[in-house]
């Protein structure tokens, strides 16, 4: 896997998350695609050994941004990076945008908000109207929702917006021509159940070794096809294809 050393444009803390921007002009970016990212080992370091999959939060043709939550060692090191980080080219299949025109719903659970910013941008570009529903644990993490004007926000602790999960806020999903969602797997399963007969695409999260299809680590069960690699056939899947 090829990694590019990219200079950090800026880095900001937004509630519980880190928003990191870097200059990127090598290859185009689809909404829903991701990069394998890591801090720069100086000199080359093996600890941690693997890079981390992170979705594109936004991309304007010049500057790409990642929004991430510090969970363990890899994200902590990314969070500490000051000058540059190393990223792969854009990877995976993103959202296959339904341009037929009907209204779309975008649902994000927690850090699952990440791919929705650039998705909304694309929908705007092609003139698809859409509503955004974002669910968070608490007010701190919900702060990123200020970057989504007009979004309906929910929090588990009830401190901001609708008390409950994102599905308590997005009550009538069946009415949408397309539903796009990203978040923890249980949320995605619930979205799948709640969505109507229209388009429903889910961005799944599996541990990844390589990000380019080589290790077979990141599989999800797909109807009639067994396990498929989410890094090349996903991370965005049609809900009906997923065998869960």
């Amino acid at each position, binding site marked *: 896997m090829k990694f590019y050393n990219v200079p950090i444009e800026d880095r900001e803390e937004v509630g519980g998350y880190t928003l990191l921007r870097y200059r990127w002009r090598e290859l185009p970016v689809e909404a829903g695609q991701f990069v394998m990212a890591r801090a720069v080992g100086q000199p080359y370091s*093996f600890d941690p*050994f*693997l890079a981390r999959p992170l979705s594109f939060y936004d991309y304007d043709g010049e500057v790409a941004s990642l929004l991430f939550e510090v969970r363990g060692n890899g994200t902590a090191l990314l969070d500490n990076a000051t000058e540059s980080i190393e990223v792969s080219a854009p990877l995976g299949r993103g959202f296959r945008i339904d341009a037929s025109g009907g209204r779309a719903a975008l649902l994000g659970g927690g850090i699952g908000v990440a791919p929705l910013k650039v998705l909304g941008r694309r929908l705007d570009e092609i003139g698809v109207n859409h509503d955004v529903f974002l669910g968070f644990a608490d007010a701190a993490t919900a702060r990123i929702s200020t970057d989504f004007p007009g979004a309906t926000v929910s929090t588990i602790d009830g401190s901001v917006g609708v008390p409950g999960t994102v599905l308590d806020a997005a009550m009538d999903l069946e009415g949408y021509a397309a539903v796009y969602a990203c978040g923890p797997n249980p949320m995605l399963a619930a979205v799948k159940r709640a969505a109507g007969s229209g388009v429903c695409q889910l961005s799944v999260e599996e541990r*990844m*070794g390589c990000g380019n*299809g*080589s*290790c077979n*680590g990141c*599989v999800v069960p797909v109807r009639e096809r067994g396990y498929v690699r989410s890094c090349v056939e996903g991370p965005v899947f049609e809900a009906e294809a997923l065998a869960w």
Partner: protein
Amino acid sequence: MVIRTGVELGVELCCIPLKTPLMPASGTLSREALGEADGVYGAMLPKTATPRPRNGNPTPRIAETPAGMVNSIGLQNPGIDQFLQDLGAFDRGMPLFVSVAGDTVEEFRALCERLAGEERVDAVELNLSCPNVEHGGLTFCAGPASVAEVVSACRAALPDKPLLVKLTNEGVVGNSRAAEEAGADALTIINTIPALTVDPHGRRVLVRGGLSGPAIKPVALRAVYEVCGTVDIPVIGCGGITRGTDVAEFMLAGATAVQVGSASFVREPREILDEFVEYLKDANLGAVDLIGGLRDFSRSDR
């Protein structure tokens, strides 16, 4: 494919000329990533194929460890039929090796028989690190007798192509000797090392599988060194090769070629080749000059 570096990179393995001594380790380079191989590798080696399609293990299949990773993919593959149908993608103008595994000696034999007539296949690698269902799930590497049995059967079924035998670290010296006596043309050393990762907070097994990556390099290097002191057939070194000097270290320890596995998840193989070329330039040597070229042999072990 032309590799121009001003340095002699070619080696010969079982009478097959390789433009560089590097090749992918089986199971670590997918069709989607083949672009990385061009102009870098001296041979192509796709993921192990089994007689029937295998779905593999449930996730999590990989876990990270200090300087390495543990995987338990479970040999997911589409089965030999589909594998051969798709093989065209792996024809990158370099020798093509095919890795196979079966549940029984007969399955191994039948796979070799099948490949014997495949013109596109230049050599076959037996992945003996999988469980032998006829022997209570011990792997085919469980001991010299087991290795000898499967290698002899495959040798008979594959008279005209080089037969490579890939072994695990445990018992590697005795197993290497057995493989050589049973007719192997070369050995690949080593496969992953049995390992376990535990999630201490969830108090669960995370992944029970095989350890790979830089962590195992000194173990693999030792295995290659000992085996090269024991057998006369060529050895392909594998385990933790991540930089150009790692390639040199394995060749100095006696390997004729090397395989790059987990490192290709975190680097471009081309960078490893470039570093190796730099090394050779500095040393004013060609790749073949390195093979077994340690200046000393070590004192007794602890």
